[in-house]
């Protein structure tokens, strides 16, 4: 019923990137246990802070549960796909999970447009 040795990867990304990352995760890694929230980022180093407009930017919060044995590989995959390694590219982190329920979708589900 529950999966053990799972990890939670969370990414705080600039708005507009998450959909592509989700698509890559599904197509290349077969991962569908993911969720996206919208959020606002407050920081000392947001792009707008430099222009004196304010210190908030729109963000997307991506959360993915992954098996522990694949976690490092998927962490690096998301790092590359989301292009974290650039100024204002966002932040990602990984934490341990005690138990995770298995998640699957019906087989005859049509693709999203």
């Amino acid at each position: 019923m529950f999966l053990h040795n799972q990890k939670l990867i969370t990414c705080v990304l600039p708005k507009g990137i998450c959909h592509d990352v989700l698509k890559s995760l599904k197509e290349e890694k077969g991962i569908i246990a993911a969720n996206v929230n919208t959020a606002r980022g407050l920081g000392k180093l947001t792009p707008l802070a430099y222009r004196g407009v304010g210190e908030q930017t729109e963000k997307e919060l991506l959360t993915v549960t992954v098996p522990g044995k694949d976690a490092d590989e998927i962490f690096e995959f998301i790092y590359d796909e989301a292009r974290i390694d650039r100024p204002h590219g966002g932040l990602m982190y990984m934490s341990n999970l005690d138990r995770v329920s298995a998640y699957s979708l019906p087989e005859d589900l049509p693709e999203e447009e």
Partner: protein
Amino acid sequence: MSKREITVLTDVSLITCIVQRGVADTIVKAAQEAGAQGATVYYARGEGVRERLGILALAVEVDKEVINVVVAKDQADRILERMYIAGNLDTPGMGLIFLTPLEKAATYIPREIAEKLERDEAGAKSAPVSDQ
């Protein structure tokens, strides 16, 4: 397979704080003053003991703000306490805060800072170990 080397941060923790809507900015400001670099805030809906708190259960907002702050482990206690005080979390119904250890984190690290970290790490390894 990794396309390039990733500098990951290991001694990091996540502070999560759930408060009534409109309070987050004050708490984030306190966190930043205590040393946090930034925060992510999103909305949620809270349910539970709220129905038994406040005047006719109306004084406690159902709309919540969730604050996520990633901090260095050595700063975590101080920032957690400052956020707790700023949010008046010792008052019933104001919200809650918790600290989660993170396995690793990654973000953009400017080259000069990455080089400095490498130098510090190399220096720590080569430093003579005291017998005392």
